[in-house]
């Protein structure tokens, strides 16, 4: 995600995970997704909102999402859904993410391998 509203670089890949997770709950359009991310993260995760669309388009090209123009609240919107491949990718990414979080947590907690050696 670009610009001054970006989170640090090492959060690359997180927007994809969040998008897949949120779309697994229900189909949404872009604005809806941005709102859902902000609400779910208590505004901790912020980014240039427009940057969500290139990510959505890429995920759609990779057949992880499908899109359809629908009437939502009286307005015609492009609504995104998770595909079967998307569900598989979500499961994989969640596992990876959980492992990374556990590993980082273990270092932060100062486990056996994470402890700095004494000089």
């Amino acid at each position, binding site marked *: 995600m670009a*610009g001054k509203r970006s989170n640090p670089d090492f959060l690359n890949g997180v927007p994809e995970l969040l998008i897949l997770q949120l779309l697994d709950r229900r189909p949404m359009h*872009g604005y809806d997704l941005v709102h859902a991310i902000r609400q779910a993260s208590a505004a901790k995760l912020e980014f*240039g*909102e*427009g940057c969500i669309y*290139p990510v959505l*388009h890429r995920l759609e090209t990779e057949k992880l999402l499908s899109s359809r123009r629908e009437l939502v609240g009286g307005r015609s919107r492009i609504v995104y859904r998770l595909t079967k491949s998307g569900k598989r990718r979500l499961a994989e990414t969640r596992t990876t993410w959980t492992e990374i979080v556990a590993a980082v947590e273990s270092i932060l907690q100062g486990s056996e391998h994470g402890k700095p050696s004494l000089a």
Partner: protein
Amino acid sequence: MASQAWRSQLIEALHRQHLPRRYIERLVEELSDHADDLFLESPNMDVQPHNDARLGTAEQLAQTAKLHFRRSTFAGRHPVVTFVAGPLMSMVAALIGTVLLLVAVVWLVDCVTGGVLSKNDGTGLPPSPFEMTLMQVMNCIVRFVPFAWSTWCFVRLGRHSGLSRWSIASCGIVAATAILFYSEMSNDGTGGRWMMGFGWRGWKIDAVQLAQSVIPMAVAVAMLWRCADGRSETLATEA
């Protein structure tokens, strides 16, 4: 609300990134919808700064769009394989395809004309003027069509994947290979011979071999020219 000025700026920025027209249209459409939502959310805010702050500036959006668009295509993920190894493989395939197609056409012509082309086979008689003309036409097609076709394919692929500069390299490779390709026809009185292949035969490059490379070379030069033009325009705008 998506103001016309904001839309125009966005479209210009996306075009500068050489993204395909259809992709730009869809992105602008969705971003305009989003901008409308932002306006409905806070109708008293100044449109342009509000859009820039929430959506990102036109330049930021265009750069992100290009990054994700590239990542979504095979060519974007593997440009060297696509635009450097790709032309070599595609030219061999195009040459084989063209020859097979021509053989099929000749066979069809022979069938339709009741064996006009095959009646002298094995008799040791020299080919008729009609046969020689047909072979010359085929020779001409083989010498030019595969290279023109490959050039067209890679220019299109470059444009489609937002990697037009890489397709310049492809055109260069096609042009160099075209120079190395030879196809010769001869009639020794007992039958026509047709030889073709790739190879460096010293500096004995004839005019036709150079002509084979004219299309890819011209396209590469035109694209380089356009790139240089685009860069100077961007610099002028930035200044």
